[in-house]
């Protein structure tokens, strides 16, 4: 399972993409956020942390599958 990172989250993890091995694959959005926060406590300091699954905002209960496109969306600041 691959996860894409943008903006400040890309700086925090030091990469625009991370692969999760099958043993550590989060089952849903809530689990993914929990794993990321435990690996990168800096995420807790952000104003918000959203997740997109297949380029749609996804709430905590949305399940994750290996072939989904998953992205971490820090606070947006376009315009």
């Amino acid at each position, binding site marked *: 399972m691959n996860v*894409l990172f*943008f*903006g*400040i989250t890309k*700086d925090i993890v030091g990469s625009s993409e991370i692969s999760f091995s099958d043993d550590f694959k989060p089952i849903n959005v809530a689990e993914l956020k929990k794993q990321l926060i435990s690996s990168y406590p800096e995420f807790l*300091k*952000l*104003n918000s942390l959203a997740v*997109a699954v297949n*380029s*749609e*905002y996804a709430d905590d209960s949305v399940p994750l599958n290996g072939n989904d496109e998953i*992205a971490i*969306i*820090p*606070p*947006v*600041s*376009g*315009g």
Partner: protein
Amino acid sequence: MKKIIEIVDVIDTARVYTELSDAKSGGICVFVGAVREFTNHEEVIALEFETYKSMALKEMEKIADAALEKWSLNKVVMRHAVGEKGVEEPVVVVGASSAHRDACFEACRFLIDTLKETVPIWKKEKFKNKTVWVSAHP
């Protein structure tokens, strides 16, 4: 074409009038966002924009559709730039045309306000001695 949704490297503000102009439209309203020289009294050298493009286009599409549903509009344009932009350069242009001015004024405000809330685009402010991701921290 009723709506134009784009993410581009460079914004040409001169195009938008032709894109929104329409025989049925008595009003055209456009908002252009540009790079400001100072943030909290600190001099900005440039802004750098990045995006999650496929999702950003989808979200912009949703906003344009919501505007077309809410107001009686003839045309809608939403265009955002990415990459590094210097002071006074345009970074976003949104606009709408309608038979009378009320609809396009209200729609134009909705387009930019909602874009800033939901579209996955991020900007980094580059100052002389530091860079800051805008809105990332409280």
